[in-house]
């Protein structure tokens, strides 16, 4: 397999080289990525194995290629991804899979906050845990988190589904979502995904988070909460004294 050394390259030069080389080679290995930003953006074909950490936006707008990041990935990995596959062997930063509309991302470690913000399609599987605000305002797609999730998961999701293994999820729900069982079809599909990606897990152990879309007013947004009773304790005189 051909090696490409990224040690002395800017992301622009690197991406041009990647594109050129992937016309001929089906596979490439990338050495010394040194957390460079914007690695492999918009790639349409081929397979790239990155032997190290990546910076921001690795695989952004990915459109058919296959990226494997052997170590950790920075923020915004797979942003606006349309098709293809990204595998992250260790952990990923915040905002993984933001605005993803297609393709699959698999993270073997943990991810930061705002996983899949505004996601529109495709699949993202996190084998470890995810930070807070996972799946905020998603418009489609599937998120699967096999470890724990942070608070406000699924806040204001419009469409799509989030599958979770975290049993304590009830205390961490965002607004406008409900917990549901998986149907048979879903269990089958997800088990297929698991076996395809070599993930040792069982879909029937998961719970699904779905959007409350039964009517427009189900969308409970921020409300001012004036707690008059609570505030009474701050007043200098008690009600009894006043009367």
């Amino acid at each position, binding site marked *: 397999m051909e090696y490409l050394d990224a040690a002395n390259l800017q992301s*622009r030069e690197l991406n041009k080289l990647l594109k050129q080389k992937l016309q001929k080679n089906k596979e490439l290995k990338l050495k010394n990525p040194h957390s460079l930003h914007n690695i492999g*953006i918009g790639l349409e074909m081929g397979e790239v194995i990155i032997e190290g950490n990546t910076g*921001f936006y690795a695989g952004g707008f990915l459109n058919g290629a296959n990226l494997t990041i052997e170590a950790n990935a920075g923020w915004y990995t797979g942003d606006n991804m349309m098709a293809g596959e990204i595998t992250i062997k260790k952990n990923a930063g915040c905002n993984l899979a933001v605005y993803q509309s297609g393709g699959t991302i698999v993270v073997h470690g943990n991810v930061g906050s705002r996983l899949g913000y505004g996601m529109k399609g495709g699949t993202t599987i996190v084998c470890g845990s995810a930070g807070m605000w996972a799946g905020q305002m998603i418009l489609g797609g599937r998120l699967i988190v096999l470890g724990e999730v942070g608070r406000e998961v699924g806040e204001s999701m*419009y*469409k799509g589904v989030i599958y979770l293994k975290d049993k304590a999820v009830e205390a961490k729900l965002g607004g406008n979502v409900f917990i549901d069982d998986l149907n048979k079809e879903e269990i089958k599909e997800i088990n297929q995904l698991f076996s395809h990606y070599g993930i040792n897990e069982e879909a029937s152990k998961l719970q699904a988070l779905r959007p409350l879309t039964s009517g427009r*007013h189900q*969308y409970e947004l921020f409300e001012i909460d004036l707690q008059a009773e609570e505030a009474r304790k701050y007043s200098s005189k008690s009600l009894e004294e006043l009367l």
Partner: protein
Amino acid sequence: MKRKKAKDVQRGIWNKETLSAIDNKASSGKHRIRGCGSTRAMPNFDDIVVLPSQLTRMSIDTYREKCDTRTTLGSRSAKKPLVIETPIMISGMSYGALSKEAKIALAKATAKTGTVISNGEGGLLKEELQNSYRQSIQILPSRFGFSKDNIDAADMLEFLVGIGAKPGLSGHLMGEKITEEIAEFRQLPVGIDLHSHPRHGDALGADDMVVKMDQIRQLTNDEVPIFMKIAAGRVKDDVKIAAKVGVDGIIIDGAQGGTGAAPVMASDHLGIPTMPALVQAVKTLEEANLKEEVDIIISGGIKDGADLAKAIAMGADAVAIGTAAMVAMGCRVCLQCHLGRCGFGIGTQDKKQRENLDIDQAAQKVANFIKGMTNEAVLLAKAAGKTKLKNLEREDLRAINTEASAVTGIPLIGTDYVFSESFGYF
């Protein structure tokens, strides 16, 4: 002596509107949403006059001589800058807020006049792209219907940070307008009240935007001009940051800017008006020695050729119009755009109402309006002795009241005094 009738009593701030606003909150406990943006009086370009040529310069014949209006935008670093025939852009009004028919009419108007239209929040309609002369594509925090394909179709890109009618807030589209068609286009459930994504999920701060900018530049082969649209607030800081991020230009939307739906609070009390925002943007770029590089498009309440001429004289490279273009199609500014019951077929998704808009007729009217507005600006420019619209300069302007002089730094009529930081030659 007869007693005055209750309705004739002067009530000062307790006028009808105040009462109705209080009644509204008293029954709902909520803030109010309304179409169209602010209705407040604010300093604007009408407070400025253009000085005619007399003995100091030669005038250019209004009826026989040429005055160039062709405008190039985004040449700072884009390999294919945007060239338009008149410096009037049709600003991004979403498919959703506007009907499909209205969007097509606006696009057709750009083809008739050689200018650019922006798609707005609701994704890119195929029919809009097919009919537009030049297409600007917005990159919004919600990314409805957005993908690399949209970027490929763009003659210009707009990274949206905010709009003047509701700066600091995200898009609103009330349930009445989220029909099946719109819902499918945006990937939303039918009939919900949409309060769209507040922040760009793929660039949380200005430092990240530098990297994001490089990404988008790479994806467009450095060809397409990239603008950033910001609502007028801390203009000086925002313009500096945008320039640092690496944009080719900035669209500044002042507080008079229009909208399809916004909280009245936001329209009336957030952000600064268009004209002073322009002044601050120009000053900031001049101080940074970037005025020649970074283009400015100004919008918010631009309604005629005089506004255009004065904006250009103050340092804008182009203006953008929203409400004015809608009015040219028949909109009567009823402020009820959010309800989606527009009888003119403009701000509605109702099938019946949409039939009321004759696309070709509407397109012609908007085209006429853009042409007429260009004509007006050119009339002023020629009278001021310019053979190019963009040759209008600050020195050609005077303010007719102290307030306008103070907010612009342009001398008051009949004096050489500037009632604030000076702006330019004085």
